[in-house]
């Protein structure tokens, strides 16, 4: 996949758009390795195929739930965090493939979710890795393109 810089820019703009419009969360790009508490993934297929993974700290997931659903902190559950993480990834993937080629049809899978902790950084596997900070809360996004045959 050529032109990684342009792909990175399109993905970053999709992430900003979704987080600002739907979650009222304003992100700053950063490059420090992050600790995450939950992850979500989605696959896209069309002229190109690949997957997108999001790694979220509990803090940013809680902010997304509070802002999107108008819930108080004590009303937040694993399920609401899961719903928001999956919906965010769905919107980011849709926005990204639209930017990639608005004239072509892409299919998106139903997003998957895992509650697992780990570390994510620029050196993690993936064709494009992005890290963000929002008032000390972390988000990582990784995109991989599948090669022919997969």
């Amino acid at each position, binding site marked *: 996949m050529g032109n990684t810089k342009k792909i990175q820019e399109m993905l970053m703009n999709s992430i900003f758009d979704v987080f600002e419009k*739907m979650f009222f969360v304003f992100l700053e790009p950063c490059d420090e390795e992050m600790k995450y508490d939950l992850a979500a993934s989605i696959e896209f297929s069309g002229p190109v195929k690949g997957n997108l993974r999001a790694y979220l700290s509990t803090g940013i997931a809680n902010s997304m739930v509070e802002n999107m659903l108008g819930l108080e902190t004590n009303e937040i559950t694993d399920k609401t965090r899961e*719903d928001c993480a999956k919906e965010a990834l769905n919107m980011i993937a*849709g926005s990204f*493939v639209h930017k990639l080629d*608005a004239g072509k049809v892409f299919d998106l899978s139903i997003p998957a979710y895992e509650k697992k902790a780990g570390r994510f950084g620029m050196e993690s596997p993936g064709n494009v890795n992005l890290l963000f900070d929002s008032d000390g809360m972390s988000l990582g996004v990784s995109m991989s393109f599948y090669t022919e045959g997969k």
Partner: protein
Amino acid sequence: MSFNVLIVDDSNAMRAVIKKVIGLSGFKMDSCLEAGNGREAMELLSDQWVDVIISDINMPEVNGLEFLDLLKENETLKEIPVIMITTEASEQRMQEAFDRGAKGFIKKPFLPEEIKRVLYEVIGVGSDGQYEEDTRDADEFDF
């Protein structure tokens, strides 16, 4: 005049947001039904009437496009205007939805005013609450 709305989306969060946004927008909503996919929506519609449907495309079991087909096959339900609300907004996908009977399209992420505008547009009601005749042809919709 107020309206009954059905929101079809597999995401609880998105259904809650759409419902909240419709409420805040000033759109006159009487009741709001919710379904997690096209199959659940058809079950609800078997004994409840709605004035407008807002449906996602990418859903398990019966997706939004298949749901449009099911509505089209039903003499009564095919009259209900359907707005697709989706991340998959390629021109080809939108045309496919319009060809299957969708009357409006909202791309996620969306702004609240877009939902209100499209809702009134497809129902054919002006800001004065009166019905307006929709004289547009299918090719007049903007993509």
